[in-house]
């Protein structure tokens, strides 16, 4: 007992921890959204410090970001063009994420769709009239993306192989394949540079209100995805599998088939996004066709809490940031890296604020006011 009382003395000198974490589940939705808005304000404030340090007026820089993204017709079209594939890719990963199947291979599935669409555009252009050609490109893109998404799903369903690494690695395979096409079989003969020829006018998407009709396609998919997840039987199955595979089996669901089916849908939508990039925006295929959209889409999906309608706004917001940072590069000679830092700060704050929605901090308090907290 003697040794113990010595220990007791030592422990006595310890004070209560300075900060403790407690999980909270009681936050009303309105307060949660207030915190999210506050986080954006905080991000803008931190960004302002950076801008001041670079020797500019933060207000005019922010104003120019918005102006540069919306105030002229060309800038609006540019911003929307950035948003379309981003929204498409975010919609693509939504059903997979809802199922807790971590598909981080949207990048590769976009490229797979782009390759298939490009193939049709390059080699079948004389064989069919324009509407049919574009429809075939659409279907080819969706099918290729879908197949690229199904392969990891098959391995997951059959042998339980981790989909995260699998889908990630699949991005690099298809990226390497694009490089091969660019340098080899599909290389434009007239060019001194290793690149694929531009696709013919026949295979380019028509415009509606100045933007290629991809925006209509994507908005239609947004609505469809919302109803699919919320009201369809398949959407219900996805939610149950995502919550608990055991429950799904108990309910008699064929979990393997649901995983495969859902990943086909996920890959197919990414493939459609790839088709839209080729046929609506770039008019060619290159290593940078996907350009990281498949990864940024994860941020979009997460920030929107997998709600397709919220995704429309988040992807527009990120497109504005991206377009706006281009503008301030030209207008203020702010280096590209600084513009990226700014974007990073904003995203960091938006994602980081979820912590304060889920947890509360309890600071050390003096004895006597224990009723508090």
């Amino acid at each position, binding site marked *: 007992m003697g040794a113990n009382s010595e220990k007791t003395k030592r422990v006595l000198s310890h004070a209560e921890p300075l900060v403790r974490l*407690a999980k909270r589940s009681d936050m009303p939705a309105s307060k949660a959204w207030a915190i999210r808005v506050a986080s954006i304000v905080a991000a803008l404030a931190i960004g302002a410090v950076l801008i001041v340090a670079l020797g500019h007026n933060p207000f005019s820089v922010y104003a120019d970001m918005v102006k540069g993204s919306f105030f002229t017709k060309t800038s609006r079209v540019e911003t929307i063009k950035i948003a379309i594939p981003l929204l498409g890719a975010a919609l693509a990963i939504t059903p997979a994420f809802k199922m807790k199947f971590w598909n981080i291979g949207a990048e590769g599935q976009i490229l797979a769709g782009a390759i298939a669409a490009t193939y049709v555009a390059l080699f079948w252009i004389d064989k069919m009239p324009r509407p049919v050609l574009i429809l075939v490109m659409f279907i080819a893109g969706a099918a290729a993306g879908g197949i690229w998404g199904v392969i990891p799903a098959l391995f997951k369903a059959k042998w339980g192989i981790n989909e995260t690494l699998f889908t990630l690695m699949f991005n690099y395979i298809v990226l390497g394949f694009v490089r091969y096409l660019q340098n080899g079989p599909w290389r434009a003969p007239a060019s001194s540079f290793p690149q694929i020829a531009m696709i013919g006018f026949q295979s380019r998407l028509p415009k509606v209100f100045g933007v290629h009709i991809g925006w209509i396609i994507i908005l239609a998919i947004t609505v469809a995805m919302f109803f699919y997840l919320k009201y*369809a039987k398949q959407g219900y199955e996805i939610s149950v599998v995502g919550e608990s595979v055991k429950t799904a089996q108990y309910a008699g669901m064929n979990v393997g088939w649901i995983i495969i089916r859902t990943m086909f849908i996920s890959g197919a939508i990414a493939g459609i996004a790839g088709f839209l990039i080729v046929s609506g925006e770039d008019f060619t295929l290159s290593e940078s066709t996907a350009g990281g959209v498949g990864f940024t889409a994860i941020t979009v999906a997460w920030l929107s809490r997998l709600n397709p309608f919220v995704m429309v706004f988040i992807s527009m917001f990120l497109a504005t940031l991206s377009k706006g940072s281009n503008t301030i590069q030209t207008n203020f000679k702010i280096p590209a890296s600084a513009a990226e830092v700014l974007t990073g700060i904003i995203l960091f704050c938006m994602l980081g604020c979820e912590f304060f929605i889920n947890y509360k901090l309890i600071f050390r308090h003096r004895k006597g006011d224990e009723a508090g907290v």
Partner: protein
Amino acid sequence: MADELNAIKLVDITKSFGNVVANNRISLDVRKGEILALLGENGSGKTTLMNILSGIYFPDGGRIYVSGREVTIRSPKEAFELGIGMIHQHFKLIDVLTAAENIVLGLPGSVGINRKALFAEIKELASRYGFEIDTGKKIYDMSVSEKQTVEIIKVLYRGADILILDEPTAVLTPQETEKLFNVLRNMKADGKAIIIITHKLNEVLAVSDRVSILRKGESVGTVDTAKTTQQELTDLMVGRRVSLEIDRPQPDENAVECLKIVDLTCKSPEGHRVLDSVSFSLYSGEILGIAGIAGSGQRELCESIAGLYPVHGGAILCRVQSQDGDYRENIVGMKPTEIIKRGVAMAFVPEDRLGMGLVASMDMTDNMMLKSYRSGKGIFTDRKTPRAMAENLIKRLDIVTPGVSTPVRLLSGGNVQKVLVGREIASSPSVLVVAYPVRGLDINSSYTIYDLLNEQKKKGVAVLFIGEDLDVLMELCDRVMVLCGGRVTGIVDPKSTTKEQIGLLMAGAGSGKAASS
């Protein structure tokens, strides 16, 4: 200063999680050389309080004294330094190491282990308190009771003077429980202070010196065990008078065989026989209880009947009613959907309610349609029918919930179980399999569940009841089948059998040899 006789004294301990006050100004004390039982229903704050004492949670307010000195406990390590040792319900042992290795694991010392000296030390400790332990045996070769012994010695070896045992008897046979109690009495004689958390009243009366009762996060009193009765303890625990009688209506006179299991054998993914030639029949209008130590094949039995566990051999014959007369269908190898399609009316309430029977984050409506969402034409789900069903259940079973749109994980354990049992009963089954239906439920909810099962029995449903509390099994069931190591060691009539006899069957007696393949 507090008196030195108190090993532990808690004053006004308060702890809340979000809006829930788990402990509200709880005070209690334990003397040296005393066994204190901490009694309370689930959710009364017992485990929270003990977790505060063992350094896992930090209290929002209140004071802790150890041997009369006020202390702060910030981590399990500091709890150990104060001589407080906790034996958790779920053992924290490393399977591939031996008993002795687990006991010294994590202790400071030289790089090498002097096994001889260590073994001798452990043996000495064990014999002082009357344990039996094989120091060189690997954990994976051990029975649950042996593992518990290792846990207790681990704590004693580290010099604990204050032991907290969280529901230590939940996994033991009656005989093993008696052995454990003898050890606890020896430790008490040695001057240790012991807190035992339990909700089994007969055990409280058998082993403790005093009982502290918690109710809804508050302490409602401490009584001397010698001066109290089961009824008084129950009333204190629940807060009003409750009847402890379980109803057992007469089984159906014209019973028909609803389910016949013949030589059912199942193997675990590792190739062990988890069910070994199990044969029995289940009749309409009866409750057949399954007794056994945890992990004797109960889960595999239920899940193989429900089509969720691969069957290696044998047959599961279900009676199917049709216009052309009844016939039997062997459902081995069928998926759950197929079993339903063949017209087998079976309902299954699994052990893991929120992880298997229900979808925790979904609301009641969505959970109602878990098995029936395919019905109706078109690609969209019909939510009107399940919604009406949910509203009906809330009324009929008094489910306490803010509404049909509240996620079921936010409901209390008893209400979650009512949702699940309610849904399964609503499918009007002829065979109802329920696994541990009252685990974690308070006394009131438990009795509601017993009543629901009896109601089904009176309707002529064949009920298979997997239970853990022998007293309940013996009061509620018409017959009790005992499993040990995946084998049936006996089917007995509880009215003419003693608890000790069932205990022997649970330990493997009667089957010729204890199955352990």
